[in-house]
Each structure stands twice: as structure tokens, then as C-alpha cells.
């Protein structure tokens, strides 16, 4: 169990303690204000070099991380490694060694293969590795920003200070995650974060998209979707990842929508105060109805904007923890 990410890698939320998660969320609160200034920049990581290595297509996560690094005054080496470069024959180890030779403090790594971030952390043990999504394994900063967004929203409603609230707003919180849990790194990180903070997590979806070992993740299966919608305080929708061939796990997209899509009819089953979340990019009309996604219960845009302060917190704690000062 990792008790703090200060000076450490962030590879997975599975081995992160509740205290380590709260530390990141609290640190992120302090960076929210920076993002609201006219001059959105602090010198916290001045002179530090962050390599942004995306071996898999991504726009939003990459923009979010690079924005976070720049607002901390770090220098960013941005390398979009097209999947074709792997086919050119360079091994992961060689690619990392090349970038490392330029002199870097941290790597933000996105890779289509599960475990890639952990492997890279072994190749360059002197460099901090931040996992920006590895295959179907983990997407830790997404899990953190989702937890951050829930805490921020609930704290506002209750008029309490989010930092002072610690993890108390998660105690007994009922979270329903819907869709392709089995192939989703977001689901793995979300479930790890929510359960660690004290929430109760249920999942709904067709059996072909659910893991067989759900109990070991600390979540339970909700056999009746409609009932689970009435139960939930938070509904986390997942993207049906058609590009990964997961489409063949359900007969048709229409059938998925009619059985597990958050349609307008189903959205009416929700408690009025329930929150709707989605990590994006959304398949509007498939897992979520367009009006529902833009409705008052959805906090999807908030998730996106919170990506920057949460990633600032992660980068700052991980890199400055090496011995630097704020």
C-alpha cells in the first residue's frame, strides 16, 4: 500500500491508500484557484522536464496533462508516438531510453497495452512515471478527477469546505457504474478510488461486459438496472469502446441503448439530486441520451475542467517530492 505519491510513481489506484488519495485531492483544491487567475501559472516545477509520451491516440488526456505541466512551469517534451513507430521496430525500452537520454524528471505515459507504465518504471527507475492510461488496466488520474469532482460538487451543495471534509462525503455514497466494466481502465480506477474512500459501488451492464471477479474489486452486481438507478447517488457511465472491438460483446448498439443506455425515460428514475458522470468521449445516443448528457444533473464538463488541477497536483507531488520546493 502506497501512503503518499510524494516522490513516487502513480501507476495504479489499486495500491494507493485512502490518505494518499485525499492528499492528492486536497492538493488539487489549491490548484483550482490557479486555474481561475488571469495569469494561470505558478513556478512550482520550473526547470523540471516532463515528457508526455502518448503511444495511443488521445486528445483530451494529453491536452489536460500538458496544460497542467505548463501551468506548473515545467518544460514539456511532447512526443506523439504513432502506433506505426512500434511497427517500425523500436522496442518500448529503446524509445524510453531515447527520451530519457534527453534528461527528464517525469514521464506521462499513455499506452494501449496494460502494464506499460509499470514496465517503463522499471526501465527508468530514476524517472517518475505517471500512468495516463494503460490498456484495460488503469487510468489513475481519471479516477482521481472523478473522485475530486464528486467531492467538490457535494461540498458546494452542503456548503462545506472540501479539504476539511476529507473523505467524509464518500461515506455511504451510492455509486452505480454502467456499461463496459470489463474492458475499462476508467472503471478499474474509479472503483478503486470510490471504494477506498468509503463509497458503495454497484455495477450494471450485460454479463459479457462485466468482470467475473467483481467481488474482488469491492463492487457488487446490480441485476435490475432500473432499480439501481433509483438507488444511486452518482451514476458513472462508461464509453462503449467500439474501436476496441467490444461491439461484438453486445448484439447491436441499438439493443445496448434499449437495455443499458441512460435514456430520457430512465433518467427520470434518478433521484433529483443524483449526479451523472462520463469520462468522455461520449457516444451520444448510445450509452447516454444527448439531452441527459447536457442536463442539469450531468457534471461531465466539470470532470473535464477538473482534469487540469488534479493532474497539476499529481505532477507536483510526484516530481517535487524528489526534493524540490514549491
Amino acid at each position, binding site marked *: 500500500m502506497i501512503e503518499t505519491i510524494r516522490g513516487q510513481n502513480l501507476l495504479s489506484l*489499486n495500491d494507493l491508500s485512502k490518505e494518499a488519495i485525499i492528499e492528492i485531492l486536497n492538493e488539487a483544491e489549491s490548484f483550482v484557484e490557479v486555474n481561475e487567475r488571469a495569469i494561470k501559472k505558478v513556478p512550482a516545477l520550473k526547470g523540471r522536464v516532463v515528457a508526455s509520451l502518448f503511444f495511443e491516440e488521445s486528445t483530451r488526456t494529453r491536452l489536460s496533462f500538458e496544460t497542467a505541466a505548463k501551468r506548473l512551469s515545467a518544460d514539456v517534451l511532447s512526443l506523439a508516438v504513432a502506433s506505426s513507430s*512500434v511497427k517500425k521496430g523500436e*522496442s*518500448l*525500452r*529503446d524509445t524510453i531510453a531515447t527520451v530519457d537520454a534527453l534528461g527528464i524528471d517525469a514521464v506521462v505515459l499513455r*499506452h*494501449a*497495452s*496494460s*502494464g*506499460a507504465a*509499470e*514496465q517503463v518504471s*522499471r526501465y527508468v527507475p530514476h524517472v517518475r512515471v505517471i500512468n495516463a492510461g*494503460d*490498456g*484495460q*488496466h*488503469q487510468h489513475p488520474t481519471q479516477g482521481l478527477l472523478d473522485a475530486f469532482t464528486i467531492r467538490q460538487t457535494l461540498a458546494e451543495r452542503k456548503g462545506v469546505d472540501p479539504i476539511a471534509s476529507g473523505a467524509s462525503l464518500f461515506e455511504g455514497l451510492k455509486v452505480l457504474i454502467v456499461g463496459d466494466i*470489463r474492458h475499462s*481502465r476508467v472503471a*478499474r480506477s474509479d472503483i478503486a478510488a470510490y471504494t477506498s474512500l468509503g463509497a458503495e459501488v454497484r455495477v450494471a451492464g450485460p454479463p459479457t461486459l462485466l*468482470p*467475473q*471477479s467483481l467481488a*474482488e*474489486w469491492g463492487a457488487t452486481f446490480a441485476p435490475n438496472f432500473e432499480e439501481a438507478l433509483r438507488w444511486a447517488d452518482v451514476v458513472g457511465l462508461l464509453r462503449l469502446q467500439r474501436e476496441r472491438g467490444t461491439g461484438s460483446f453486445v448484439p447491436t448498439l441499438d439493443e445496448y441503448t434499449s437495455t443499458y443506455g441512460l435514456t430520457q425515460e430512465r433518467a427520470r428514475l434518478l433521484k433529483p439530486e443524483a449526479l451523472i458522470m462520463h469520462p468522455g468521449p461520449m457516444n451520444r445516443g448510445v450509452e447516454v441520451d444527448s439531452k441527459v448528457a447536457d442536463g442539469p444533473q450531468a457534471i461531465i464538463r466539470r470532470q473535464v475542467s477538473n482534469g487540469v488541477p488534479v493532474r497539476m497536483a499529481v505532477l507536483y507531488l510526484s516530481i517535487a517530492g524528489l526534493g524540490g520546493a514549491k
Partner: protein
Amino acid sequence: MNNILITGAMLVTANGAVEADLRVRNGVIREIGPALTPLEDEQVLQLEGQWVGPGFVDLHTHLREPGGESAETIASGARAGIVGGYTALVTMPNTEPALDTVALVSFVLAEGARTPISIAVAGAITQNREGQQLAPMAEMAALGVRIFTDDGSGVQNAGVMRRALSYSKPLGVRLAQHCEDDSLVGSGVMNEGPLAESLGLGGRSNLAEEIMVQRDIDLLRSTGGSLHLLHLSTARSIELVVNAKAEGLDVTCEVTPHHLTMDESACATYDPLFKVHPPLRSSLDVLALREALSGGHIDAVATDHAPHAPETKDRAFDEAPAGLLGLETAASLTYEALGQSACDPVLFYSVLSRGPARVAQLRASDCPVGLSAQGGALEVGEVANLTAFDPHVHWRVDASALQSRASNTPYADRAMFGRVTTVISKGELVLHAGELQ
């Protein structure tokens, strides 16, 4: 030819182990008895406390030639084999191109004949191992090929497998199957189960193996012929084979040293050195394989020695090729799996030598390219293919000191118990005190 006198060792015959000396002259075992007197022109090997039995036979070696010479060659693989105690290797046909014609098989046999040990070839069942059209098995059998397999993958189409079994029956050869149903394997890269799900890695289920084991046993029942099941990895697979044998079907099977000594937990760090097909299974399956081995239900321990050049293992787990080195560690791991000090030397030589030799049908008369007798009874008059194993030695694997061209051993720095010290192949001393001669 060396003239050699082995003294002080425990000679392991098919029926028991006896303390006796053994004399080799002109490549042939000449005399066995207590306290033999050295002759003037003899090299005396004092092997006190060691076991001496027939040279090991590996049913499942990937020598990678032709096409994969950056990972292994027939010559380097033979050296690795000698260090591991092997005097005969059956090399697999999943080369580039696949060993599916007389010309290719002849090339490998000719290269093999230049090594100090015996290199036998497993030919492909289907052309280019594509699982469609049968390869010319009769022509290859005429060269001495006694095993055919599409190893690397199984013959997926039941109709093709049935035809192959039927066609091969009068040839007196054995078909060997890599049992994994592709439709159930999907894009899996490790054992299916909670660990794979937590790691976000695709699973290869036990079911994928067991369904093909069951299918091929049922096919064999209808066609007759001989079937060998490669690298079985699950408790249920073994149970199916035990039942098929009891029924009288001519089915044999092998397990690998890695499936006997490692479980799926080795994959938890995403190190591709532990990626192998079929995958490392649950600890319960490992236990079942060990029990079956100790109970004498397994015909052979076979290495599935699969060299891969280092750069191919420097990739992500799901992108890296499957397979690991086996020849140089197999004997020690087999000794470990058989209970170390509780290990019965007769069973040890049975699964490493006599059993696989029987499956491979290695007989001098079979093979015009000069395979000598293998897996012998240890009798006077036999060509000397002998391996000495010292059960008292403890050692650690040094990945940089392997004879194989590749270094993809999952056992680097691991403590090992018992080690091959001496190998005599075709009457020549080729390994002495652990050093290649």
C-alpha cells in the same frame, strides 16, 4: 572415440537404481559391474553420489532454424541441450518457412547431424501450418520424421484434424497437438481469472485447452492412430488423458518444467519473460500437474524451449511473443517438481528420457540419418548416450551464461536444486563437470 570409465555413480535402469561402474569403449557400453578396474587408455569419471542414466530426450524444442537465427540456431540450441543433459532434441516445425516439405526437413536433419547430439524433426501437419491442406507426411516420414504437429497453434478445424489422424495412421507416426481453441483464446495473453481481470490483461481460459483435448481424444477414438498432447497445463486436461489411456487409446502427453514450477502470479509485474502459451495457470493446476507427474501419468517432461531475441521481450506484455527458454533448466526443475530429495531416480529418467524417447520413436533402425539409440535400458552393447545428474548441487541461474543465443529465461537468479554434470552423446564425452567439451 573416448574410452570412458564411470565410477561411483548410481546407474538408473528402467527398473531400479544400482551402484555400479560403467565402461564405454568405442562409443558402446561394454561393461557394467561393481568396482571395475580402469584400463590404461580410459578417461575415468568419478561420479560419486550422482545418478547416471540414459541421455535426456526433449520432445519439444524450438531451434528456430531456418528463419529465426537471431534467437537460436540448430548449433546453439544443441549446445544448450547438452548443458541441460539432452542427447536428442525433437525440433518443432514453426520455423520460417515452416518445416512442411522434404527439402526443409532434409536441411534441418543435415544441420542437426553436424551437432554432437541427435536432432530429430517434427514435421508440420498442414502446409505452412495454416490448418487447411495436409502437408506431405508420407514423404517426410520416409526421412525418419515420426512426429507431426502445427505447434504454436493447434489444428483448429476438427475436420482437418480428423483427416490428418486418419491419413497418418498407416505411416506409423504420431500427431502432436497444441491444444488451444482460438475462438476461446481470443486475444488472451495470460491465464483467465481474477488476476488477469485485475491486471487488465486478456485471459486464455482452461476451457480453451480442455475442449481441444476432449475433441482430439474423441476424434482419435473414431480414426485410430497415435496422438500426443503437447504442454498440458490444467488438471482437467490430465484427467481426460488418464481416462483416454485407460480406455486403451494410443494417446500420450507431456508437461513443461515451467507449468510445474510457476503459476500465474508470475505475470503480476507484466514481465513478458513469463508470457507463454498455454499460460502459467493457477496454483491448483500446478499442484495437479505435479501430482500427475509423481503418479506416473505423464509420459514426458518436455521443455517447449522457445528462444526469443531480447528486443522482442522489451515490449509490452500483450505485444511480446510468447515462450521461454527451457533446455538448460529443465532437469533441475523436474527434480524440484518430483520432490527434490524425495525424487525417484527411475521416474526422473522416465519422464526426461525413456518416456519421451518412446513417444518420439527414436530408434536407430528408424532413421537413415543416423539417430543412435536413445532413452536406452543401460545395457551392454548399447550406444552410449548417458547423462549424469548430481542431485546434491545447489546453483543459481545466470542468464548471461546460457548457451542459448537468447536469454529469455524466467529463472534468472533463481535457486535451483540438482544439476546435470556429465553428458556422453554417441559415445563421446560432450559435457564434463558442467563444461562443454
